[in-house]
């Protein structure tokens, strides 16, 4: 009954993508010199920055763990990131929730036992929001961690999928996100084929769930292919630089 035609009978979405296509992805690594690792990540009009500090000394001594590193995550949205300028959006419920979710994701992936009594900080800021910010942040953080050289079990890639008017769509943008359909953010370890994050706030029937889940997995794999290819390029360049130095 919705007024906007989110997917035309010709099979195109509002922005011209087909249901299984993710948006255009671009990223850069090593932006900041003070951070140990950093990444700027674009997925369509969603743009985020991630910076990784550590492993470093634990700031609150009491929180230190003797057998592993602790991970700190902070997600925030820039006041100018949305259409209407927000007042300070720091530390609201939503960003706290997302911070926790991302922390949990990475706690299971980073080989924290290698760095006992340290802490790793991951800061993520959304510069421009157009749907799928938490997935974009996970991807950016993943890249920043790689940039920082922190050992992980696998790449972490994340992508959301949803369902509008009975059609499963991957990587929803803001308009599609606000259609009110179910939204299912997923993060996987692509090489190991394991799921490390799955959120679902709305109800879906089992059949629909399977379909949306499949869509999200496909989206993750597409994103992984793009990230991996470019990362290999970047690494090659780094190696080449090294060679000239030697």
């Amino acid at each position, binding site marked *: 009954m919705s007024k906007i035609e989110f997917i035309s009978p010709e099979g195109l979405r509002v922005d011209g993508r087909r249901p299984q296509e993710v948006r255009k992805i671009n990223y850069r690594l090593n932006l900041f010199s003070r951070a140990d690792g950093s990444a700027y990540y674009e997925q369509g*009009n969603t743009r985020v920055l991630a910076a990784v500090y550590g492993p470093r000394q634990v700031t609150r001594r009491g929180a230190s763990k003797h057998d592993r590193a602790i991970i700190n995550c902070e997600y925030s949205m820039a006041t100018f990131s949305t259409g209407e300028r927000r007042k300070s959006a720091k530390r609201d419920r939503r960003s706290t929730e997302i911070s926790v979710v991302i922390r949990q994701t990475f706690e299971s992936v980073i080989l924290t036992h290698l760095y006992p009594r340290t802490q790793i900080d991951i800061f993520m800021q959304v510069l421009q929001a157009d749907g799928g910010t938490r997935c974009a942040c996970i991807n950016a953080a993943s890249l920043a961690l790689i940039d920082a050289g922190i050992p992980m079990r696998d790449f972490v890639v994340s992508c959301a999928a949803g369902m509008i008017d009975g059609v499963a769509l991957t990587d929803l943008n803001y308009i599609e996100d606000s259609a009110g359909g179910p939204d299912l953010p997923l993060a996987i370890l692509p090489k190991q084929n394991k799921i490390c994050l799955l959120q679902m706030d709305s109800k879906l029937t089992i059949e629909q769930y399977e379909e949306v889940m499949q869509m999200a997995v496909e989206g993750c794999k597409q994103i992984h292919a793009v990230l991996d290819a470019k990362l290999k390029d970047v690494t090659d360049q780094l190696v080449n630089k090294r060679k000239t130095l030697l």
Partner: protein
Amino acid sequence: MLKSKTFVKRTKKGNVVKVVKEHYLRDDIGTGVGTVLQAGAECYVIPDTNVILHQITVMENPVITNVIVLQTVLDEVKNQNASIYNRLRALVGMQNKHFYVFSNEHHKETYVERIASESPNDRNDRAIRVAALWYMRKLSESKPVLLLTNDRANMEKAKFEEINVKTIQQYVRNDMKQHPQLLEFLNNSDELEEDAEVNKSQRKTKGVLFQEHKSEAEIRRGLLSKTYITGKLIVNRNNINEATITPDHGDKILIKGFENINRAINGDIVAVELLPRDQWTTPSTRIAQEQSVSSSSKDDHEVGDKIPTGRVVGITKKNWRMYCGSLDESTNDPKDGLVMRVLFSPVDRSIPKIRISTRQCLSLMNKRITVSIDEWKSDSKFPDGHYMSTLGDIYNTDVESRVILLEHDIPHYTFSENILNCLPQEDWKATVPAPNRVDLRDEYVMSVDPPGCTDIDDALHCKPLPNGNYQIGVHIADVTHFVHEGSPLDDEAAKRGTTVYLVDRRIEMLPKLLTNNLCSLVSDVDRYAFSVIWEVDQDAQIIDVRFCKSVIRSRHSLTYEQAQNIIDDTNRDDLPAQALRNLLKFSKLIKNRRREAGSLSLASPQVKFDIDRESMNPTDVEMYQMRETNSLVEEYMLLANVSVAKKILHEFPTLACLRGHPRPAPEKFDQLLKTLSTVDVQLDTTSSKALNDSLNAIDHSADEYVDTLVRILVTRCMEQAIYLVSGDHEPDAYVHYGLAAPLYTHFTSPIRRYADVIVHRLLACSLGLYPLSKRLTDRELARTIVDGLNKRNRMAQYSERASVELYTNTFFANRLVECEDAYVVRVRSNGLILFVPRYGFEHNVKILEESCQYDDAGEYMVLRDTIKIKTFQRVGVKIFVNRGKNYRRRLVMQVVEPDIMFAMDTKDLTANMLMSGTDDDKRKEDVTDVTGDVTLFEKSSDAASEPKNKKKKRTK
């Protein structure tokens, strides 16, 4: 796959926000040739937006195929006219039309960006041209591409770019010469000047009749500053020169006079400017018989309070649809083969006459045809339209029935292929045991229905339990087992909403295979059912109730008469006889309890036509006969509905689909009470119980029929029962006034009502047999569905009534009834309202005021100083049909006993009847249309499930 982006600025409501959207351009969109478009087509046509908007009927013609619909065009059409958009989408969906949607806006090579100096319209025109050029390049070797536009500038630019371009008129006249019938459908209003100079010059000579409509921006500004008021225009059916709007806030506004209505048509959303206070007037009591360009001032003798009066300054949303009617009867010298401009007069009296051009004038005379409006120029007295289709001969009952269906917007086409694909195999058999189904095949289940009934949706069983109590089961056809949520079949059923019963036909909600076969609980076959099973004690008090999906095997399909005979047959004491007697005993107890709670028992004039099978003409009319067994079945249906309503409301407090019947506003009774007080009948309308008691206390020793008559009149004061979603209303609104039930819903007829289908699903959810799906929990969706159902129900009632009226007229057209009993329902200053029990209709008899004295307080009149006529008096009437203007048949009644001389002779009768129609029809609108004879069954406690039975019988 290339992806690129553009930035679009957009303002939202109130504040201006910059919205940045991505726009991906693709290279994988094909031309569609060979897939959707036929490879062997002579030429591919690309229409522009205005061609689609103005010529959709031409496009719908089967000879127009291989059309490329550009996305630009599609979007523009969508923004401008939703109904044409839907028609265009339907065309795209048709396989044999070969309409292809080319997503040019997302194609790398056809996307154009707006240039700074360019208006959005120009940009879109350019996008269309670019797409046309792209097609020409792609298809250069094979087939020509033809751009259709009626825009001069666009055409010149296209010619400059060497695109094949034509106006739609040129295309139809030259390229489609072999299909001259297309000319009929052509809308010539936007013809380019060089083609239509003659027309133009003719127009120039005429003066401007109407003020120009204000622009959209001006209207918006006016509405914001409250100088204009907006609302839906309702034209008085008896006087086309008078209309009203009822704004969301504030009082009704009267719009009087042809030029003040300013070309708005019934149902349009209009902007109205109030006239200065000294020009305010009252609604007229007289009636304009013909459409005339008369000013509002001349026909007024003003009585009563003046109400705000205004004039239309603009139309914000047009409600133009297809109209049924006939060519004006007085058309001079109709000829075929020559294009003639003739007037079309619609069946619906609130629609003005429409001027159409046709080449088959003669063959269209005496035919019912459909016409649509193209435009209404400010210098034209009538709107211009074009012919769409011929339905058939006037007065042919089949054709007139189709007119009724079309006018009430009732979907009556045959079910489409993809809907029929949802059906199970014809030889489907119930599998037993089935998961989650209780096997009730051992119970002695019987169904009781009217004779010849094929869609049996309910069956009953009753047996004594070892503990002295009784078990009573109601088994309802399990329609949702076949109609899956969200399937095309389900969507279609939701759209149809209800089965519509006309006198001569039944327009079914579901395909025949389900209604007459797989869902129908016929005897000696295993069928799936949804059962409600009660345990009741000797006093019919409910001890326990449970619900389950079940498999049943009905033992007997009885008619009401057979069931009655079994009960009455004292020699029989077998299983069915015992069960039926027990059922009857309990039903009476339950009925009495309901009566005590205040359930109304009303009456309505219901007639049944005996129809001649060959000519389809009615041969006799009779009242419908009720038996004890009718009310037996009803009682259990009511009980089942109430039990289910309680259950679903308890489980889903916000989602339950209920049937509410608001208590009538006290002022609705005022007129009736006043009339009744003149014949010493007192009614207590404070509550339904008090009303029922006072109805029962009426002394009808003098004339038996008075009792029924009063009940009929009370029925008309009732509100309409409606479906509602429980979450949207206060619990007070759930009440069913007529049944005196705090909760009520529809559960027992899923074969013919969609509301029951929803309720079945909800009940299944509450039992854990069905997932609580997205569609069920979506309240927004539920609300739209329920609103749709209410509208469909209302339309179904109107059409049923129109159908009865049609058959009544046909019946009397062939005979003259010399003397028939009638009762005076009301006495007015200038006439009598009479009710004829035998035929179950009411009519108006006009008596000129000079010949009688009318006593206002006592509501009686004295004719020629000797004959006194008062309310509820029995008179003898002569009934016949007179033909009115433009094929409107009217029933005419004359009082012959006592022999009162009429102040008019029969020659004038038609005209006079037209005049007296004011009161008659107004009453119908004011009272009947709101409450309605048919709805009565909803309200009348006796009869919630009864109308179906009755109608089924009728249609046989």
